[in-house]
């Protein structure tokens, strides 16, 4: 293994979990998400010579993942991910985790994508704009609508949960 390949292992492979978590929200099933991550990492490996050390490897990898996903003709076909109860509720199976992931899944696909990239993965609006090839203003407005929708969803879920408890 040469230095470049070793660098790939150190830079890209640790991102597999984040990529998989994000891919599961994009694709319709967990196995499709795994395939997407595998393809993403292979494309990254093949194109690693173009990656400049010291730049944001996470942003680079997520950009590849999104390009791969949209390149497969999946644009506009984002669907609600039929994850299992355990997946949606988190490892602890608590209702808070269930509510928040359920609310996320109810968002329109374009809002869910920017919210995942911004709120969960921590990318800036500028980075998201570059990843999705959309104007910065569009990212900002989608993000704002996504957060408002999340709040409404969670308020509603909270009320329903309170009624059940009482």
């Amino acid at each position, binding site marked *: 293994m040469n230095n470049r*390949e070793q660098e790939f292992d150190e830079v890209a*492979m640790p991102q*597999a*979990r984040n990529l*998989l*978590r994000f891919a*599961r929200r994009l694709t319709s099933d967990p196995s499709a998400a*795994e395939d997407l*991550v*595998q393809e993403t*990492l*292979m494309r990254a*490996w*093949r194109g690693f010579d173009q990656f400049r050390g010291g730049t944001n490897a996470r942003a680079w990898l997520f950009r590849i993942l999104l390009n791969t996903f949209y390149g497969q003709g999946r644009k506009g076909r984002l669907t609600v991910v039929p994850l299992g109860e*355990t*997946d*949606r509720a*988190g*490892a*602890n199976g608590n209702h*808070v*985790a269930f509510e*928040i*992931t359920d609310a*996320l899944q109810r968002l329109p696909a374009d809002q869910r994508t920017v*919210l995942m990239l*911004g*709120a*969960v993965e921590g*990318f*800036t*609006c*500028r980075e998201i704009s570059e990843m999705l090839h959309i104007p910065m203003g569009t*990212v*900002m*407005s989608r*993000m*704002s609508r996504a*957060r*408002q929708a*999340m*709040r409404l969803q*969670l308020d509603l879920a909270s009320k329903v949960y309170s009624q059940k408890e009482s």
Partner: protein
Amino acid sequence: MNCGDIDKLSALWHSGELEGADQKAFDAHLAACPACAAEIREQWNNDTRLQEAMAEEPADTHGVEQRVMRQIARERMRRWLVRGLVPGLAAAAAIAAAVLYLTSPRGTPVNPAILADAARDHTVEVVKQAPRRWRTAPADIAAIETSQGISDSDVKALETTGYKLERAKICRLGGTPYMHLVYGKNGREFSVYMRVRGAQSVRETASNSGDLQLAAFTRGRVQAVIVTDAPRGECARFTRDAEAAL
């Protein structure tokens, strides 16, 4: 900055991209507007809850990582084959083909009777210097060339080997007329039996008979049999140079 601006710029505030005067104006509005402050605070809390929920979500990457590593190993092998082994194999194949070409039988084998006659003729006429009617004058040699259909340039070309044409005559090898040319340098002599080849080429040959070295080749329209009592290496060099010169 009003409530509409807060809604518009909230994404930048959350991501930390709001700077300078905008940042100050944003914070000032939140301090003065309880509704916007509550909204932003709630959004912040929801982001945190979402991050925590996602962090708890199981995501076993072992299978993916294993598949990626296996695929990388396969592609690495493929790259190595393409960049390293294939050119190496191609080069080896080219060398093997060249060796095969050079060593494989081409044309018809030289009639052994011709080689035997050439060896005997060289021994008698060159080594033992039996009296023969040699032609040494260029005009006479040219006349023999004409009678045999041999180009004068071919005859002279052999002098590029470093050996000078000394004499020539007609002789018969295996019943076929050949122009017998003797080239010499420093007392070392080579008999070159030359004729315009027929329909068939003779197979490139190198052998020895006693102290004699023999070689035969076809080059262009000329067929040549070479006999010498020079050492094997010198014969090989002369033959190679002669073949190149024709």
